[in-house]
């Protein structure tokens, strides 16, 4: 028996010689976590069964350590204008207390990273890049800050990020809040945030996540992380909450049709090919990095009438497509799978793949070369899984 594919959680990101540890590392060790290198960090891959963790997030709640994610603060009178210049979205238009998904692109339009931007105050933003990309994003933001009245501060090293995700997440978190905070946090809409005291610890609480479920992400100082983890674990005991690792995070996000940097997104990919054209605000005022190239791509119909596009594939057989497998049309290679696995929730294989735009319509029948044998797949609309509201 030999494995011929890398695990889904490994990316094309250079690993540092000695992986970094989060403030919760000792907690994970005591829980018997299986660890994996991810973006230069040693992170829990799973604690027991990744399938059980996946299902628990869909049916109850999971507790995640996401402290490998970056946290960059942009503060100052020109913070909004600066982010409008540095990123592809119109970040100055975010209301205080709201968040927005965005991209940071190179001058040629290639994606440097995807990230979430929170507006904490009028002149105070929090930018959250991916773990492996954080240093690159910080460097790019610092460079792009020239000429703006803004301070860019990389707070990644001192910040921990915990996430509670699943249908019971809100009840678990709210049980740790004062009546007043519980009312505010409970009323938060998706992609909103508020400061709150959670089990006695000051936290930035955001109703965001990467699982397709309702849930919260909590940004705290490192020294608070172990106590907050313990409080959440205890509060969730009666609701079935369990600690969850990156393995199920990957299967959850794929079911939810969310892209992963290093798989679906890279410097070689245009936002329009990735189906993220709506994130690019060509109509905003002023210049921004990548504007000329992205305007050209839009004018050329990249991802809509020309080139390739990211699609969802549903397996018609039992065998799953995996990252880098070749997509076939009538036996000829036409594209490449970027992520794929057997969907625990849906019970059939699912995959994301880049295919020519004329083969991107839902219902299109394609094959994937599964180690020499073509297996039938069909293009389906994304997301694969949408929670009941």
């Amino acid at each position, binding site marked *: 028996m*030999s494995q011929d*594919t890398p*695990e*889904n959680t490994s990316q094309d990101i250079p690993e540092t010689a000695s992986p970094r540890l989060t403030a919760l590392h000792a907690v994970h060790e005591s829980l018997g976590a299986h660890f994996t290198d991810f973006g230069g960090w040693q992170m829990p891959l799973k604690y027991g069964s990744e399938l059980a963790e996946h299902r628990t997030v869909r049916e109850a709640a999971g507790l995640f350590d996401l402290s490998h994610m970056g946290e960059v603060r942009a503060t100052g009178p020109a913070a909004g204008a600066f982010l409008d210049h540095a990123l592809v979205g119109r970040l100055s238009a975010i209301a205080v207390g709201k968040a927005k998904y965005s991209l940071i692109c190179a001058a040629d339009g290639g994606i440097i990273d995807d990230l979430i931007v929170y507006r904490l105050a009028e002149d105070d933003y929090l930018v959250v890049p991916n773990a492996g990309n954080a240093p690159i994003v910080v460097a790019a933001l610092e460079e792009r800050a020239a000429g703006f009245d803004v301070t860019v501060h990389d707070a990644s090293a001192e910040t921990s990020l915990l996430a509670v995700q699943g249908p019971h997440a809100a009840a678990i978190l709210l049980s740790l809040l004062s009546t007043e905070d519980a009312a505010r946090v409970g009323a938060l809409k998706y992609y909103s945030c508020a400061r709150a005291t959670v089990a006695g610890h000051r936290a930035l609480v955001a109703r965001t996540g990467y699982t397709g479920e309702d849930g919260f992400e909590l940004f705290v100082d490192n020294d608070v992380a172990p106590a907050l983890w313990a409080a959440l674990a205890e509060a969730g005991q009666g609701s079935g909450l369990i600690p969850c690792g990156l*393995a199920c995070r990957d299967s959850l996000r794929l079911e939810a049709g969310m892209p992963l940097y290093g798989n679906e997104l890279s410097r070689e990919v245009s936002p329009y090919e990735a189906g993220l054209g709506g994130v690019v605000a060509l109509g905003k005022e002023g210049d921004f990095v990548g504007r000329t190239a992205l305007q050209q791509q839009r004018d050329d119909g990249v991802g809509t009438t020309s080139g390739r596009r990211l699609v969802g594939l549903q397996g018609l057989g039992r*065998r799953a497509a995996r990252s880098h497998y070749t997509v076939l049309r009538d036996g000829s290679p036409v594209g490449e799978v970027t992520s794929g696995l*057997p969907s625990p929730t849906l019970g059939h294989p699912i995959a994301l793949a880049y295919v020519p735009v004329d083969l991107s319509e839902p219902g299109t029948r394609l094959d994937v070369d599964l180690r020499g044998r073509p297996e039938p797949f069909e293009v389906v609309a994304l997301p694969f899984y949408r929670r009941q509201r």
Partner: protein
Amino acid sequence: MSTVKAGLRYSEDHEWLDTAVTPARVGVTAIAVEALGDVVHLELPEAGTELAAGDPCGEIESTKSVSDLYAPATGTVVEVNQAVLDDPALVNEDPYGAGWLFTVEMSAEGTLLSAEEYLERNGGELA
């Protein structure tokens, strides 16, 4: 810690072969299962298939990845474990017992290791 069962024969590719029964029985080791994660689908050779030791003869699909299964012996497949096809999680739960894969009427063993030799290369504990 993953166990290595005494008395079985082991391939470098992490299959086990039980020659104490006839026909010989084939499965995958606990160490392999640990590396694979949750097994969700199996492609196994059908009864009557002629196997050549060392050649790929099936696939093990886990949530994480897919692995080839190699024949630990030359011979003919006699019986496939229908229970494990129906419920691949048996491979995780009981790799040396209910999670066996198929039996083979053996004409020759492949290049195999003793439990002690397999243990020495892969770690684990003898049980």
